[in-house]
């Protein structure tokens, strides 16, 4: 299979192309994927869209999200911590003799540990989401309010020589608007 070598070009500019027609946008990405613009791979592409596009995953290639890992370990921690916390609380409740009945009551601890498992699962999923989606960060890069209405945006960081071929590709797929900014 033909392969290319990444030339160490210096990225100087970031270009945002807005497309009204989603299929045109996907065409652009498909072209980039086919190296229509020399030196650009599909990994440089950032797709901005008003809705979720699970079907674009195939085109954009493998970009894993570790939210499920957070959820799993969070739940597991919740379960273990919950049970230990409850058991130690009951064991240290010295002021309440139980008249010979069990001190650490397994059935009730199971119920409560189950609740703690889910609570910590949800909280850790939230943490995973915030980390994974790099939320709450200083907003960098180009943005256009049309993205939250009905247009798809494609953001790519390009070197000087790649800018014009990219723009030509955009215009080929009747881009509505192009913004650009120079990387600091």
């Amino acid at each position, binding site marked *: 299979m033909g392969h290319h070598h990444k030339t160490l070009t210096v990225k100087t500019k970031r270009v945002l192309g807005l497309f009204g027609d989603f299929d045109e946008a996907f065409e652009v990405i498909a072209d980039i994927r086919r190296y229509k613009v020399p030196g650009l791979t599909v990994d440089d592409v950032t797709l901005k869209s008003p809705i979720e596009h699970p079907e674009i995953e195939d085109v954009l290639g493998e970009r894993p999200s570790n939210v499920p890992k957070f959820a799993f370990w969070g739940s597991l921690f919740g379960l273990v911590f919950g049970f230990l916390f409850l*058991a130690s609380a009951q064991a240290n409740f010295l002021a309440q003799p*139980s008249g*010979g009945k069990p001190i650490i009551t397994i059935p009730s601890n199971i119920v409560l540990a189950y609740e703690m498992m889910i609570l910590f699962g949800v909280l850790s999923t939230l943490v995973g989401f915030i980390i994974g989606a790099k939320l709450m960060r200083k907003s960098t890069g180009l943005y256009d309010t049309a993205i939250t209405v009905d247009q798809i945006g494609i953001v790519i960081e390009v070197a000087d020589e790649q800018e014009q071929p990219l723009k030509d590709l955009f215009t080929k797929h009747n881009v509505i608007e192009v913004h650009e900014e120079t990387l600091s």
Partner: protein
Amino acid sequence: MPSLLGNIFKGWADYSKGNEEGGHHDYEHMYALVIDLDRCTGCNACSTACYAENNLPVVGEDKFGARQAMHWMRVERYFDEPDMDPDMGPDTSNIEDANETGTQSRGASFLPMMCQHCNAAPCEPVCPVGATYHTVDGLNAQVYNRCIGSRYCANNCPFRVRYFNFYDNSESWPAPMEQQLNPDLSVRSKGVMEKCSMCLQRTRAARDTAKREGRELKDGDIQTACQQTCPTSAILFGDLLDEASAISKVWKNHQVKLGTYKQDKENPELRGYRIFEELNVDTKVLYLERVREV
């Protein structure tokens, strides 16, 4: 942190050891009652003595009618028989002349009803803050300061012997009546559950007296207020763990054992029985059946 985990395993060890040696083992006493219904004349002295000893408020007609009264002990009066078919018409008298113009051919049966201090009390596991628990004396303790008034315990008590302070009942002691209040136990505030404590303050006093005199508690040291004043001595309090005590003899004579929900007596004609035994709550008040001259 080490003591935190240490206690867990210690707790588990104690509990498991308890299981091997045949059930509950860490009781120091097992206080219980015997009430001989044949001696009980229903004179209500026990209930009034309980009012005097335990600072029970008087709530007046309206609240009594709304069933918000605070009598820890109530003497119930029945004219019918338990095995009589419940819907045999209103207020049937006894067996022979149950016809309309017939009158009672026998007196009533009286039943002093108070907290039964069950060993498997249904009220203990359901209290959210652990305000009621089973003490090592075998009593069902009600900690007034810890109670937040969720009232689940009263709902779960099959005997309905838990009473809730629906109001602040301090107007039931206008000056100088409040000087009669017994300082050995608290005056409960609004929002707190209370019930017969088997005169915990008298038990404590007897134990302190014994400790100060340097001797073990012996049978008869502790008398509950109701037992003390019952004119026909129908009520007997004692420690079941003390084999020599009078109460242990009565429980043994009537072949009634703790820890079961059905007694298998060799002589079924013995009078001793426990109320709602089939609920497996393991009550600690043994009632002796009233005798009926047929």
